[in-house]
């Protein structure tokens, strides 16, 4: 079930990289944004196009207290392709949140973010033809996904760990099957 070897080139072969909100936030808050160039260089080298979910856009742009700031953040984030979420995404995300809880009973529902589940759902929906870039690898558990690569960014002396998360069909099918067979304790 577990992958025995890591083929990074394979993870990038389909050309789309979904960015998590924490990557956008890290970029926007870094002392020097250009330190994050490593991620862009990697995606550029593999010609992986950057995309975002509209739930990520909400997390990034929301809660501004004036129109000028709201517009500037919107304009910045709109340079990327924004994918809408639909019923299928919510269905997979809901299933995932229950499967996470089934697999790790100690997880509190507060630790399972709807937006993270929506990102995770994209990895499943696109069947490995998409990768996710995140600075919180714990939001994408290894019992469903793989970490194909980690990149350490030096943000003015502070280390930001970035993970490239990919879909693992074997793990997903195994979890789905076990969850479907699960009974109430």
């Amino acid at each position, binding site marked *: 079930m577990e992958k025995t070897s890591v083929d990074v080139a394979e993870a990038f072969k*389909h050309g*789309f990289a979904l960015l998590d*909100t*924490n990557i956008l*936030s*890290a*970029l*926007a*808050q*870094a002392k020097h*944004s*250009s330190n994050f*160039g490593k991620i*862009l260089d990697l995606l*550029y080298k593999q*010609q992986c*196009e*950057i*995309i975002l979910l509209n739930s990520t856009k909400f997390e990034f742009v929301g*809660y*501004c*207290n004036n129109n000028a*700031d709201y517009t*500037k*953040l919107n304009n*910045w984030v*709109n*340079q*990327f*392709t924004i*994918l809408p979420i639909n019923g299928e995404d919510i269905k997979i995300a809901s299933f995932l949140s229950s499967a996470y809880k089934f697999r790790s009973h100690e997880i509190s529902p507060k630790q399972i973010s709807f937006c993270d589940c929506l990102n995770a759902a994209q990895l499943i*929906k*696109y*069947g*490995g*033809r*998409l990768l996710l870039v995140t*600075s*919180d690898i714990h939001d994408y558990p290894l019992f469903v996904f793989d970490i194909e690569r980690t990149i350490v960014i030096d*943000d003015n002396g*502070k280390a*930001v760990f970035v993970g490239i998360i990919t879909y693992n069909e074997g793990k997903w099918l195994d979890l789905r099957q076990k969850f479907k067979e699960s009974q109430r304790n």
Partner: protein
Amino acid sequence: MAEKNTKKIEEKTRKEGKFSWDNFDKEKFFKETDAIKDIFINKEKEKYGKDVCGCGGSV
């Protein structure tokens, strides 16, 4: 199904003519990112009532 879904992204990115490495200017991108820094940091401060680090944790 995954193939069909991927085609949809490809169509959307082509149609909207958004982010593309062909016309990506890294220097311009980071300059524009630096320009939203203050806005973003203030917004996060208001949201959480304190400074937050890049990963969303408080500092």
